[in-house]
């Protein structure tokens, strides 16, 4: 549904996004996880056609963002970080305006407004001025406006930022319920949020993709393992067999082979530095050790950043979830 290849975006000399590539399948929820200023918003703005990419190719539903922006825009519902709402409009007026902008009109518009406001629980405030609404309601109006034309793709920039814990849970539920029908990209800087709602998570830091995996694998990697990249000159099967016998190593997966060299990703138990043992094992067997590099570290640093700055929020979210459940 969405294809991004080698996307780079520069503002003057600062590089906001560098060489990002990914693709999203129909009905999937992809989460962008990263600290503030990582390039999440910029990536989304390029996807929605608000900003042109400096380099790279972005296609949505088969249409190039640069070549056929109108076709792309027709198929995307976008909720920016601050919902783009006119404070002097009433909720229904805002939804009607957003609908007309997206090319919905007449009876269909009426029907869509009713559907969307029911989905986002706005039916009780149709005549309220947006300027008088609370942050949570405004966020919902923004989401309703993004959904009004029933877009194939939904791009949500921090949809739960600034909401109270109860609203966060409601919004997450709503987003999960929308998946399948819509392809969703959402951004967050809260790890548990990504884990709860997204089918796949992409961690972005300083404009680059650091990791991409399912939330389960990412969390497992974070909690239980550290990963080493190892390049060895030697017979693949034997090296692999020898490496997995080193104490502390839990999994060895070959990533690439060629030229008589094999590159391995070695998962080790966290907190146990096995680099010395790995090196000794390779050297004692008479193979050449070309590279030994821990890769989990940068990822971990980011997680650390994410979890420490947002831990207060998370706890609040989790607590209220418990009370809601009980």
């Amino acid at each position, binding site marked *: 549904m969405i294809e991004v290849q080698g996307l780079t975006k520069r503002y003057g000399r600062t590089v906001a996004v560098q060489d990002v590539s990914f693709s999203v399948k129909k009905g999937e929820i992809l989460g962008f996880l990263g600290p503030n200023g990582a390039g999440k918003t910029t990536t989304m703005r390029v996807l929605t056609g*608000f*900003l042109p990419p400096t380099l790279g190719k972005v296609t949505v539903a088969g249409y190039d963002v640069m070549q056929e922006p109108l076709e792309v825009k027709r198929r995307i519902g976008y909720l920016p970080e601050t919902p*783009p709402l*006119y404070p*002097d*409009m009433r909720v229904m007026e805002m939804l009607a*305006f957003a609908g*007309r*902008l997206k*090319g919905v009109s007449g009876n269909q518009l009426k029907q869509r407004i009713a559907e969307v406001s029911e989905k986002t629980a706005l039916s009780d405030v149709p005549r309220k001025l947006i300027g008088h609404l609370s942050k949570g309601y405004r966020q919902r109006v923004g989401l309703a406006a993004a959904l009004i034309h029933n877009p194939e793709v939904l791009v949500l920039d921090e949809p739960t930022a600034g909401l109270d814990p109860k609203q966060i849970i409601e919004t997450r539920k709503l987003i999960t319920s929308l998946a399948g029908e819509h392809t969703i990209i959402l951004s967050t800087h809260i790890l548990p949020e990504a884990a709860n709602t997204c089918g796949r998570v992409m961690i972005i830091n300083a404009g680059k993709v650091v990791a991409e995996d399912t939330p389960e694998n990412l969390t497992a990697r974070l909690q239980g393992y550290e990963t080493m990249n190892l390049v060895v000159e030697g017979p693949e099967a034997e090296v692999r067999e020898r490496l997995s016998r080193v104490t502390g190593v839990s999994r060895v997966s070959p990533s690439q082979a060629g030229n008589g060299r094999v590159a391995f990703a070695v998962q080790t138990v966290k907190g146990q530095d096995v680099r010395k043992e790995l090196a000794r094992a390779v050297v004692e067997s008479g193979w050449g050790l070309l590279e030994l590099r821990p890769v989990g570290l940068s990822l971990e640093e980011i997680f650390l950043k994410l979890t420490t700055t947002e831990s207060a929020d998370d706890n609040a979210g989790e607590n209220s979830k418990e009370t809601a459940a009980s």
Partner: protein
Amino acid sequence: MKNIWIIARKELAAYFHSPIAYIVLAMFTVLFGFIFYSNLRDFMMEQFLAAQYAQMYGQLTPLNVNESVIRSLVYAIAVICLFLMPMITMRLFAEEKKTGTIELLMTSPLTDLEIILGKFLGAFLLYASLLVLSLLYILILFLYGNPDGKALIAAYLGLVLLGSCYLSLGLMLSTLTRNQVIAGSLGFGLFFMLYLIGWASSYSTGQLGQLANYISFTTHIDNFSKGVIDLRDTVYYLSVIGLSLFLTARSVESVRWRA
């Protein structure tokens, strides 16, 4: 076309949902009403004097309502608008940039030109309602006098063109900033300066003076106010409108690459 109308309707509604429209229309009616009253009073005095002369010398020089009243009223509208137009245009883009709603417009399936023309049309409709209000005053003249309707139409055509110049230039200035006050003061400063150079150069004969006279918006309303539709003035106004809208389009586009 449909998209232009969607934007125009939204802009017009925004003017009337906020105090802007009411303030602009109220200020206009008060100022114009005062000028209308004093012009009419002067005209009555002249009329009275002319009648006295006629009695004394037995010869009546008829006074022309178009020439003595309507012409100066049209000029008055041009000057009042110089103050009021920036109030109409300053919010058009600056506000959307400030609140972030520009993201909604620019990620909707609309072209930049449709957005710009829609906003222009919305502001123009408010200006048109202001012109309609001024016409109500002038209708009073038709009740008691016998002004030339065709000349009046020409004068209002001139006002439509002049107002569109103000609006398109103000619209352009509004794209340059996210601060309404800056957009408004730039617009007012520019319009006032254009007025001043026209006023200051009205008696000068040098080349520079003629150029200044040509550049000023208000000097071109003169022929229209007399009931003369001069091609030169029409072309001048249309080029200013076209250039301003073109610059607006470039400026809106630059948001996409400038950041």
